[in-house]
């Protein structure tokens, strides 16, 4: 009987050993992969710090224009607009626009493009003193539409 018990114990250990020795040579799992690209816009005058709307009204002329180029970058639908502040005390009728597009640019999709801003002054007469009128500013903005 004693031998039988020993034999059974050995058998159990042997089978267990065989089960433990079975190789697990491959395994797998999966996880989702997602990408989020945030909305990203950029806008700058091409001339950088030298960008300057300098309107020169010559004698006999009633007005003047100046144009500066800018670069708009966007990876989402975006809108570009602007705000003109004429030089303090400057005479005339002031206006601005994006050449060919009024005062609002709608940019679909994604991309990089060049635009042109024109600042104009009209209605300068002989009653408007000659001189330099500094201090105005043309601001342009870009914003995601999302």
């Amino acid at each position, binding site marked *: 009987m004693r031998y039988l018990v020993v034999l059974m114990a050995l058998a159990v250990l042997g089978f267990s050993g065989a089960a433990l020795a079975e190789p697990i040579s491959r395994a797998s799992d999966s996880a989702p992969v997602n990408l989020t690209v*945030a909305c990203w816009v950029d806008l700058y005058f091409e001339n950088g710090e030298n960008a300057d709307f300098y309107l020169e009204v010559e*004698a006999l002329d009633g007005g003047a224009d100046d144009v500066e180029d*800018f670069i708009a970058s966007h990876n989402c639908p975006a809108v570009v607009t602007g705000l003109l502040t004429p030089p303090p005390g400057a005479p005339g009728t002031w206006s601005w626009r994006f050449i060919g597009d009024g005062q609002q640019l709608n940019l679909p999709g994604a991309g990089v493009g060049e635009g042109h801003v024109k600042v104009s002054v009209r209605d300068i007469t*002989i009653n*408007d003193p*000659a001189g330099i*009128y500094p201090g105005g500013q043309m601001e342009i903005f870009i914003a995601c539409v*999302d």
Partner: protein
Amino acid sequence: MKYLVALAVLAVLGFTGAAMAEPISFASDSAPVNLDIACWVYLYFENPEASFDLDVEAGQGGAEDVETFTVGFNCPSYLWGSLTPPPGAPGVWDWWFIVPGWKEAWTYGNGEIGGVPADVNVSGITIWDAAGFYPGGQLDLYISCLD
């Protein structure tokens, strides 16, 4: 050490993920706007047919004629003139503008003034001066910016 490395990797991934996901949904730029109005002056006789025709009647020693002109300026300016009597014409010739005796003037400020008189006159005509028509004289008026 193993945990430290794992933590560092997670931190890097975390920060990178945060940076990439951060939206930049607005941007702007600005440029100065300046206006430069050049000095501008003009002057013209109001009558396109302006002509100083001085008729010395018999018994008179002289004559004068007046034309008006308009002057415009958007800066301080200087006005003056020059009279060239008709070649060979007798008498003593003189001219003035604005007020008698003025042959130069300065403007300040800006604007347009019309109806400014310019006078050409001749005196000292005597019986010894041959009757006739003496053409070819000229009155020139000028304006110039002082800047």
